[in-house]
C-alpha cells in the first residue's frame, strides 16, 4: 500500500501517493500546470522550464528534526529562492505550491517569449494549428507581442525527412526531447537523437532507412508543436475540419483502439475520406499508442480497385447482377447442395461470422477458419481472465512467449510486455532465433525449428527439461501469476495444435486458470481469429481436399487461391464458389459469384482481441452504394433460403450472438460502449499534457469470461515431432511473420513500400554457403507444383540448416517444409 502524501496547491489540499510529481498531483485536482517537455508516460527531464512554480516546504529544525511552527501553530513554510519545475519535483508532506501568483505568471510568459523567439510564424501553414500545445499555451500564458527582431530569427531546414514516413521542421522544434525519449525508453528504437548544441541543437535520424521504428508515428502525436508530421497526413486538413470515428485496428490481434479522422472532399465527389488514423486511449489495450502499420496501412479501404457491384460468372468473365438475383442464385445453389463449405477469414467481425455460422449450420455445412494457427478453443477456456491487463503485470508475473516474434506479430503486445519486464515481470522467451524481446527477457531459450512443443514441455509440472532451461522453469513455477503467449514462428497448423495443447497443459499444471493476470494468449495472424473460433470456425488440416469435395464453397475475407497454387487448383474442382470480398482477388477471379462487401471503416461491428476483449468499431465513412456488410449479405442469402437471420443492424445480430455463444452471454452494444475515466488524462482539452491521441468516449470493450474446458487438456507429448527432412537439392523452409508484408491490406499504402519485406528467403551465411549462395542472389523455390523466384538474404542470427520465408510475400508456405532450391545463374554474375 503506497503511502499517501498531503500537500496544498493554491490553497487546495490534495492527497496523492508518495512519489507523485507536483505536476501530476495538480492535474488530478484540475490545476493544469503548463508543460512542454513533460509527458505523463515518461520520466521528467525539466528542460523546457514551462512548469516553474513556487514551491515551499515546512521548515525543519536541523538539530531536532521538528517542524517549526508559526504563531498560529501552522508549519512555517520556506519558499525556495528560485522557482522550481513542477515536473521534476515529487510531492512531500506539507508542501505548499503556488501556481497563480504574479511571479509564476511572469515566468510562464517569459519562457513562452523565449520559445517564440526562434519559432517561425508558421501557424497558417502548419499542420498542428488547431491542436497545438504551443498555440494553446501561448494563448493562455504567453506575451501578446514579440520584442524579438524578426531579422534576428534563426532560419533552419523545414522539410527534413527523418525517414520517408516522418518529416521534421527544424524551425518549429522546441527541443523538448519528447520524441527522442519516446523512441529510446518506450519504443526501444533509439534511432533519432540530438546533434549539435545550443540554438543549433537539432534532431537527426541515425538509422538506415531513416527513423527505422515501427512506432515512429507516435512521435507526431506527442510532439508539442508542428515539428514532426507524418508523410501521410501533412498538409492534409485542419484538425477542426475533421470528424472523429472510433474504430479498432484490424491488422493484428491486439485490437488497438483507433480514431479515424475524416473530412468531406470535392475529389471524392463530396463524400468523406479518411485523412488520418490516430490512437484512441484504452489503457488496457494500447494505452495511447499505435504502431505504424495501424497508422498508415488503411488506404486499401479506399482503393479504387474495390469491388463495386455483385458479379456473376459468364464464361471467362463476369457480368453485373442485382443483389436480389445474387441472393437468389446463391440460395439456389446452397439449397440444392449437400456439402456446403464456409471458409471464413479472421478479418470478419463477430456479427459476420455469426451469420455465416448460422447459415452454414442450418445447411449442415462445415465452418472452416482460414488460418494456420490452432488453439482458439483452448483460449476460450484457458485465456486471460477478465481484469487481466499487461499494464498491471510486475514481478509477481511470469510471461512466457513461445514461437513468436512479438515485435513483428503484435507490436503493441511487445511494447506492453517489454514494459512489464522492465517493471520486474519474469519474461521468458522461447524461440528458435533471437528476436527484439530477448533484450528484456530474464531467460532467452532456444530450440530447433520443429521442436517448439517439446521445448515448452519442459514447463509442465514435474517435467525433466534441458539443463539450460532449469532457471527459467524455476522462475516460471514459482511465479504468482503466469501468462503464456504462443505465436506462429516457423509453424503451421499441425504444429500449432500441438503447441497450443502443450501451452494449455502447462497453464493447467499451474492451476491458475481464471485468475486475473493468468492465461493463454494466442498471437493470432488476424484481428478476429478469436471471434471466429468462438463462433465455431475451425481450421482444417487438409483444406484442398475439403475444397475439392465441396459442392458449394462460401468464402469470405480469405484469398486461398492467391496464397497457395495448391488451393487455387483445388478451387477449380469445387462446385459453386461464392466469394464475399473487397477486391477482385485471385479467389474472386475463380469464383462463380462475387459479392462486394463493405470495409470495416464503412460499417459497425465488433472484434474479439487475442486478450479476449470484445470491442466495438463504428463507421467512419458512408458505405459505397452497391456494397453490403458481410452479415447483411449472409442474411440476404439466408432469407432467400427461407431462413430467418438478422440483417437489419449489427447490434441486432450481436443480440442473437449473445444468446447463442456462451462466452458472449448477456453482452450488449451498450455495455461495449461504456467508458470509465482513464489515467493519464488526455484528449482534446488536455492535448498539451498527453499529446493529440483521442480520448475514448465510445467504449473500452469487455473481456469475455472463460468457459469450462470441454475436456481435460493433454500436452502434445515431449517427444519431438519428426523433423521434416530436406533431401538433395532441397532446403527446409519455415514461415515467419513480418509486420510490413505484401498482403492485400498493406500494398495499397504506397508510402510504406520502402519498408515492405521482399520476396526473399533468409539464411544463415554458413547454410547459404552450403548451397553455394551469396546475399542478393536469386533462387528458384519449388514444391507441390508451385514455383517462385526469391532473393537470398543472409542473417547470422539464424540457426543452421533452415531458411525463413516471410508470409504474405508470395512464397506459399503454410508450415515448415522441404522446398526444392535451384540457383538461378544471372548473366552478369562473375
Amino acid at each position, binding site marked *: 500500500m503506497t503511502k499517501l502524501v498531503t500537500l496544498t496547491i493554491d490553497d487546495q489540499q490534495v492527497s496523492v501517493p508518495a512519489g507523485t510529481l507536483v505536476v501530476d498531483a495538480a492535474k488530478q485536482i484540475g490545476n493544469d500546470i503548463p508543460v512542454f517537455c513533460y509527458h505523463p508516460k515518461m520520466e521528467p527531464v525539466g*528542460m523546457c522550464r514551462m512548469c516553474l512554480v513556487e514551491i515551499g516546504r515546512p521548515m525543519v529544525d536541523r538539530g531536532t528534526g521538528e517542524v517549526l511552527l508559526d504563531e498560529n501553530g501552522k508549519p512555517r513554510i520556506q519558499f525556495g529562492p528560485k522557482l522550481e519545475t513542477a515536473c521534476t519535483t515529487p510531492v512531500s508532506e506539507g508542501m505548499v505550491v503556488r501556481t497563480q501568483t504574479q511571479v509564476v505568471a511572469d515566468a510562464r510568459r517569459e519562457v513562452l517569449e523565449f520559445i517564440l523567439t526562434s519559432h517561425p510564424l508558421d501557424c497558417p501553414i502548419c499542420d498542428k494549428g488547431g491542436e497545438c500545445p504551443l498555440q494553446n499555451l501561448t494563448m493562455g500564458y504567453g506575451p501578446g507581442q514579440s520584442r524579438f527582431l524578426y531579422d534576428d530569427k534563426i532560419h533552419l531546414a523545414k522539410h527534413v525527412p527523418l525517414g520517408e514516413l516522418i518529416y521534421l521542421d527544424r524551425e518549429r522544434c522546441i527541443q523538448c526531447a519528447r520524441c527522442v525519449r519516446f523512441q529510446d525508453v518506450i519504443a526501444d528504437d533509439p534511432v533519432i537523437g540530438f546533434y549539435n548544441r545550443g540554438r543549433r541543437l537539432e534532431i537527426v535520424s541515425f538509422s538506415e532507412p531513416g527513423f527505422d521504428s515501427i512506432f515512429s508515428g507516435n512521435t507526431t502525436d506527442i510532439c508539442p508543436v508542428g515539428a514532426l508530421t507524418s508523410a501521410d497526413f501533412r498538409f492534409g486538413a485542419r484538425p477542426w475540419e475533421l470528424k472523429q470515428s472510433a474504430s479498432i485496428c484490424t491488422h493484428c490481434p491486439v485490437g488497438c483502439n483507433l480514431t479515424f479522422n475524416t473530412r468531406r472532399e470535392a475529389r471524392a465527389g463530396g463524400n468523406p475520406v479518411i485523412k488520418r488514423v490516430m490512437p484512441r486511449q484504452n489503457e488496457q489495450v494500447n494505452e495511447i499508442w499505435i504502431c505504424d502499420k495501424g497508422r498508415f496501412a488503411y488506404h486499401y479501404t479506399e482503393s479504387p480497385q474495390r469491388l463495386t457491384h455483385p458479379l456473376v460468372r459468364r464464361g471467362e468473365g463476369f457480368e453485373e447482377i442485382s443483389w436480389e438475383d445474387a441472393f437468389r442464385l446463391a440460395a439456389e445453389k446452397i439449397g440444392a447442395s449437400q456439402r456446403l463449405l464456409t471458409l471464413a477469414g479472421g478479418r470478419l467481425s463477430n456479427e459476420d461470422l455469426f451469420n455465416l455460422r448460422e447459415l452454414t449450420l442450418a445447411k449442415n455445412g462445415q465452418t472452416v477458419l482460414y488460418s494456420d494457427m490452432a488453439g482458439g478453443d483452448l483460449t476460450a477456456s484457458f485465456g486471460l481472465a477478465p481484469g487481466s491487463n499487461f499494464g498491471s503485470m510486475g514481478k509477481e508475473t511470469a510471461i512466457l512467449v513461445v514461437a513468436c516474434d512479438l515485435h513483428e506479430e503484435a507490436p503493441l503486445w511487445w511494447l506492453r510486455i517489454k514494459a512489464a519486464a522492465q517493471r520486474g515481470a519474469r519474461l521468458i522467451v522461447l524461440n528458435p532465433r533471437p528476436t527484439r524481446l530477448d533484450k528484456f527477457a530474464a531467460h532467452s531459450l532456444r530450440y530447433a525449428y520443429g521442436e517448439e512443443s517439446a521445448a515448452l514441455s519442459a514447463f509442465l509440472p514435474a517435467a525433466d527439461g534441458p539443463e539450460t532451461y532449469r532457471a527459467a522453469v524455476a522462475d516460471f513455477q514459482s511465479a504468482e501469476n503466469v501468462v503464456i503467449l504462443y505465436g506462429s514462428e516457423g509453424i503451421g497448423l499441425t504444429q500449432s495444435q500441438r503447441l497450443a495443447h502443450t501451452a494449455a497443459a502447462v497453464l493447467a499444471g499451474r492451476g491458475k486458470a481464471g485468475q486475473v493476470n493468468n492465461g493463454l494468449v494466442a498471437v493470432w495472424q488476424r484481428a478476429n481469429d478469436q471471434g471466429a473460433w468462438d463462433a465455431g470456425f475451425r481450421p482444417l488440416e487438409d483444406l484442398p481436399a475439403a475444397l475439392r469435395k465441396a459442392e458449394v464453397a462460401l468464402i469470405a475475407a480469405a484469398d486461398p487461391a492467391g496464397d497457395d497454387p495448391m488451393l487455387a487448383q483445388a478451387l477449380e474442382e469445387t462446385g459453386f464458389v461464392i466469394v464475399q470480398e473487397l477486391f477482385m482477388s485471385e479467389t474472386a477471379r475463380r469464383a462463380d459469384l462475387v459479392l462486394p462487401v463493405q470495409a470495416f471503416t464503412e460499417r459497425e461491428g465488433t472484434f474479439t482481441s487475442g486478450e479476449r476483449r470484445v470491442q466495438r468499431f463504428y463507421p467512419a465513412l458512408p458505405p459505397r452504394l452497391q456494397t453490403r456488410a458481410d452479415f447483411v449479405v449472409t442474411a440476404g442469402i439466408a432469407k432467400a433460403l427461407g431462413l430467418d437471420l438478422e440483417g437489419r443492424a449489427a447490434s441486432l445480430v450481436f443480440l442473437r450472438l449473445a444468446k447463442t455463444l456462451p462466452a458472449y452471454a448477456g453482452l450488449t452494444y451498450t455495455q461495449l460502449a461504456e467508458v470509465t475515466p482513464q489515467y493519464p488524462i488526455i484528449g482534446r482539452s488536455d492535448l498539451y499534457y498527453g499529446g493529440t491521441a483521442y480520448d475514448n468516449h465510445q467504449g473500452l470493450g469487455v473481456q469475455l469470461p472463460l468457459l469450462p474446458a470441454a475436456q481435460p487438456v493433454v500436452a502434445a507429448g515431449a517427444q519431438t515431432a519428426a523433423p521434416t527432412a530436406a533431401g538433395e537439392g532441397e532446403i527446409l523452409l519455415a514461415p515467419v511473420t513480418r509486420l510490413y508484408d505484401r498482403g492485400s491490406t498493406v500494398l495499397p499504402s504506397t508510402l510504406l513500400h520502402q519498408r515492405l519485406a521482399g520476396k526473399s528467403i533468409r539464411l544463415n551465411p554458413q547454410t547459404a554457403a552450403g548451397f553455394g549462395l551469396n546475399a542478393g542472389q536469386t533462387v528458384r523455390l519449388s514444391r507441390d507444383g508451385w514455383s517462385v523466384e526469391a532473393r537470398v538474404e543472409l542473417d547470422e542470427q539464424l540457426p543452421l540448416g533452415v531458411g525463413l520465408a516471410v508470409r504474405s510475400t508470395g512464397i506459399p508456405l503454410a508450415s515448415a517444409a522441404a522446398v526444392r532450391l535451384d540457383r538461378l545463374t544471372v548473366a552478369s554474375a562473375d
Partner: protein
Amino acid sequence: MSQHILLRHRDIPNLDRLEVYRKHGGFEAFRKAVTSLQPAEVIQIVKDSGLRGRGGAGFPTGLKWSFCPNTIWPHYVVANADESEPGTFKDREIMESNPFQFLEGLMIAAFAIQANAAYIYLRGEYWQIGKLLDQKIAELEAAGLLGDHLFGSSYSLRLYTHMGAGAYICGEETALLESLEGKLGQPRLRPPFPAVAGLYARPTVINNVETLANVPPIIQNGAAWYRDFGTDKSPGVKVFSLSGHVNRPGNYELPLGTTFRELIYNYGGGIREGRNIKAIMSAGASSSLIIANEKALDTPMDYESLVGLGASLGSASVIVLDETVNMAWLAHKTTHFFKHESCGKCTPCREGTYWMTHILERIVDGKAVEADVELLQAVASQMQGKCLCALGEFSILPVLSSLQKFRADYLQKVAAPSLEVES
C-alpha cells in the same frame, strides 16, 4: 610565493619526472594513506584543512567526499580537467609540469572514498596533456604505485584518461558525467547529486585538478599546516590565472586573502602601457564585473570577501581590463562565448544567450537604440533563476553587472552615429 605548494616545478627542476618527484617526497602521502590511515581518517584530515573546491564552486572538499553512501558500490573519483573557463589556465600548468602531484592527489581521493577506478576527464584541446598523463600513469603502474594490492594492502586502483571534444558545458560536473558515459554532454537534473548517484548512477566524487593537487601536501604535512596559509574561512593557497591588460600575465600561486592590488601590481607588473585599470573579472567570463576602484583593489581575494563587491572568486581567473575597454564590447564577447557553448537543453539559456548576443551585436556595431539596452536588461533578467544549470545563470552576470556599473559604455554605443564618440 617563495616555496610553492602546487607549482613546485618552479622551485624544483624536472619535477615531472617520477624519480625526481619521489626524491622530493613524492607518493609518501599516498603510501601513508593506504598503509596507515583509514579512508574516514583521510576524509577528516581534508575536512579539517578547510580545502575548498578550486574549480569555481568553492564547496568544502572533505565534506563532498563524506557524502558518498557506503551502501552503494562501486564508488568513482573523476578529476575535472575540462578547464574551459576563459582566462583559466592553472590546471594546464599543474598537469604539464607537476603531473605526479595531481595524480597523487587523485589517488588519495580515490582511497578516501574507496574507489578502485578513477577517471581524468580532459578537455579535447588538451590531447597532448592526455597523452602525457597516460605515460605518467603507465610509469606509476610499472612502479607498483597503481594496480592491484598496493603496498601489499587489499586496495587496488587504476586511473584512466578520457578526452572531451570541445564543449565548455562538459566542465559542468553532471554534463561531464554524461560525456564520460558516452552520451550527449548535457547537464542532469539534481537531485540526485553525483556523490550519491554520479558516474553510471554510482556515488562519484568530482574534483578539480588544482583541488586534488592540494591533497598530497595536506596529508603529508597535516591540516593545521595547511590552515597556516590563507584566511580562516578560505584557508590554503590558490593558483591565480592573471590575464588581460597586465604586464606579466600568467599563473601565480598565492595564499587566499591576497589582495587584487598585490596580484595585479606586485606580481602582474601593473597595467601595460601605464594605462588606468577599469574593471576586474575575478571568475573568468562567469563574472560580475568589479569596478577597479581603490576599495576593490584592496579587497582580499577569497571566497567570502568578494561578495561585498557583488562578485565571486570562482576559479580565480583574474582578467584585468583597462580604460580602453568598452564594457558593452566585453559583454558581447562573453555572451557570444556562452551562446556558442550553451548545450541547448533548457529554453532560457538556449534562446536567451542567442537573443542577448544579437542585441549586443547591434549595440557593438552601432546599430542599436537606447531601447535595445533596456531590452538587453530585460532579457538577461528574465533568464535569471530559470536555467537548468550554472552556465545560463552565469552568462547573464557580465551583462547585468556591466549594465549596472558601466551603463555609460552602452549609451556611448547607441548615441547617434554621426556624433564623434570617444572609444
